[in-house]
């Protein structure tokens, strides 16, 4: 093991690990036991399936998905042409040091343990989490759930273990919310997926503290393809949070996850993401949940990092009175494009959905909102509320909004509000005349803009988000 390439300050004071990309910009050289090599073909898929000792049906599933991926064109007819800069032949699709995650930090190999310690994860786990899974490149290095929570029958393992040890639950829901062919990147994930969480919460169990997953990319020219499946059985409740970091490489890195949520009758799932990848990462993620009768799914999605993010968390409101919510914050700085949004598919009477999206464009940064709200004609008593607000910091920042709302029939209600505002020179001067520097003034304006949304986040996250915005703004003023 070599010392890290860059030393930064201690992370002990960092309350939420992984949110601050600058703290994640270091790298240890790790020897990988398993390496699928560079590029993608049938052999890559067979290799992954083989080292994971998978059942034949899954290899079949993967190979079919590979076919779908190869057949589907890049969605550049509506999405950015920057996607064409991903060189799928130069990416490494599977890198792992071992197959089975450790249950205690002591057992985790030193070089990997050190990475996570530096990111503050063991400390955070002790403080306020019910369980942690820490993924290093393709596989989880560590996975543990507090005994009290496990005793309630809650399952929290990585996807490989989930498949192996709980096939009866896993297979029933896997790939049902997001079919392989949903889009080119869900197909890619289905072909080469590895890692991610599998969670099952039994009927009536309310997990009192959040479960956290942490995704770390360590290798260059690497693709991380985790697959997460969360099932909350009838009346169950769970909060899941994910964080991520990667070192800054000059070459591009791909992160393409698929996340499926199933909230059965009366269940509640809250899924919180603070995405702060290094700005060489293409972050192309498909996230969707199905909410059954009286169930509730809430996505809280913050995108600060990456080069290009394309992500539109969705909820299929399948049972009567189901509720879906997306609260989204995106910050696009120089060289970044945050293409985010939400999908709300109403499929039962008296379902409600709420989307609040706020985006901030700084410098040459670009943010795009895409939303789909679908309420078919035969339904009644459905409600949707969509608000998207964009804040532009500089004259050359850019924002676009593409809402697609199809509401048929006259027994449903929808409202859509959009606004674009600019941080004016007068506003900055006003704050400066009170003694705040230009960067402090900008931070305050941005934090004010997202304040009503950030207040709905868990405390640790909103505090850290604010600090992160301060950092971004500091760098944006000349």
């Amino acid at each position: 093991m070599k010392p890290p390439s860059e030393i930064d300050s201690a992370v002990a004071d960092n309350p939420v690990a992984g949110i601050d990309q600058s703290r994640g910009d270091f790298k240890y050289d790790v020897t990988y036991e398993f390496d699928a090599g560079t590029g993608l073909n049938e052999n890559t898929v067979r290799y992954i399936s083989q080292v994971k000792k998978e059942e034949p049906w899954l290899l079949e599933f993967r190979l079919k998905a590979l076919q779908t991926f190869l057949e589907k064109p890049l969605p550049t007819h509506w999405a950015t042409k920057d996607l064409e800069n991903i060189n799928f032949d130069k990416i490494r699709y599977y890198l792992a040091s071992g197959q089975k995650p450790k249950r205690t930090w002591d057992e985790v190999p030193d070089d990997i343990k050190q990475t996570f310690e530096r990111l503050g994860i063991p400390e955070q786990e002790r403080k306020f989490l019910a369980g942690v899974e820490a993924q290093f490149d393709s596989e989880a290095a560590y996975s543990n759930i507090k005994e009290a929570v496990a005793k309630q029958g809650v399952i929290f393992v990585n996807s490989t273990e989930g498949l192996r040890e709980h096939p009866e639950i896993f297979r029933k829901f896997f790939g049902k919310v997001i079919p392989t062919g949903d889009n080119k990147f869900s197909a890619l994930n289905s072909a080469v997926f590895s890692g991610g969480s599998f969670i099952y919460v039994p009927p009536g169990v309310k997990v009192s503290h959040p479960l956290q997953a942490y995704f770390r990319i360590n290798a260059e020219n690497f693709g991380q393809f985790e697959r997460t499946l969360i099932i909350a059985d009838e009346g169950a409740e769970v909060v899941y949070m994910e964080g991520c970091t990667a070192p800054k490489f000059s070459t591009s890195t791909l992160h393409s996850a698929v996340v499926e949520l199933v909230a059965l009758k009366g269940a509640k799932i809250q899924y919180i993401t603070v995405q702060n990848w290094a700005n060489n990462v293409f972050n192309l993620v498909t996230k969707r949940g199905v909410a059954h009768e009286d169930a509730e799914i809430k996505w809280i999605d913050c995108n600060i990092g990456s080069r290009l993010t394309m992500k539109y968390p969705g909820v299929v409101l399948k049972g009567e009175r189901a509720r879906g919510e997306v609260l989204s914050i995106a910050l696009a700085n120089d060289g970044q494009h945050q293409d985010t949004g939400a999908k709300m598919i109403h499929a039962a009477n008296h379902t409600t959905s709420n989307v609040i999206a706020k985006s901030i464009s700084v410098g040459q940064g670009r943010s795009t909102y895409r939303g789909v709200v679908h309420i078919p004609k035969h339904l009644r008593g459905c409600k949707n509320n969509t608000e998207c607000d964009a804040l532009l910091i500089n004259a050359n920042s850019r924002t676009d909004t593409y809402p697609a709302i199809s509401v048929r029939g006259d027994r449903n209600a929808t409202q859509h509000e959009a606004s674009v505002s600019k941080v004016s020179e007068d506003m900055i001067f006003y704050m400066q005349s009170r003694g705040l520097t230009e960067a402090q003034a900008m931070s305050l304006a941005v934090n004010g803009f997202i304040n009503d949304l950030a207040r709905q986040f868990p405390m640790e996250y909103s505090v850290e988000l604010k600090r992160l915005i301060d950092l971004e703004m500091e760098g944006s003023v000349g």
Partner: protein
Amino acid sequence: MSKLEIKDFRVSIGDKPIVKGFNLTINSGEVHAIMGPNGTGKSTLAKAIAGHPDYAVTGGDVLLDGKSVLAMEPDERARAGLFLAFQYPSEIPGVSIANFLRAAVQARMAEGEELDATGYYKRLYSKMDLLKIDRKFTSRSVNEGFSGGEKKRCEILQMAMLEPKFALMDETDSGLDIDALRIVADGVNALRGGQLGIMLITHYQRLLDYIVPDFVHVMYDGRLVKSGDKSLALELEAKGYDWVKQELAAASA
């Protein structure tokens, strides 16, 4: 004891000269009223002293305790002890007055030094009591949806908390009804004297019924043309600004 010296100060907007050789010295504890007709450069003067980037200083100097402020950023001037009370204060959506002021107070502290939250709120509440401001006021977003009177009250509260050496009050009376005017004037009167020097810019005499200045100056065409005590304001009220213009015309004829 502090001193604000404005010497032969010249300011342009684009190519157009607005302030054309303005001279005035203000000492701690003094209240100077600057009066004059619209478009004579009063607001430009105040904003240029505070460092607004749209105004180009083309000559002269502004010295705070002997030190020029002209090379300083607006925030440095503020931290050095200048305060501009805005005629039209900006709205800052989502930022409460309490948090805004807290950030401004924190900005005045040395790096690494942490604000004592309990002490801060104690001080904030005592200032609010002094200015007879309701406790709920500071949880509202800065100036967002405020009436004219509330905006001015917010400015006065900031002035009270930031304890500047010199306050430049730009048309503090504009857009106020008589009740709001009285509240603002009471606030200024509560803060005046002691270490605070005030430049009070106003178009009308009526504010001076409530804030009695130590000195009254008349600004016309970018410079001071007449100075006196509070009786000058009354004379202006009676005779109008045309009187000053005629006097000037006669003098230059």
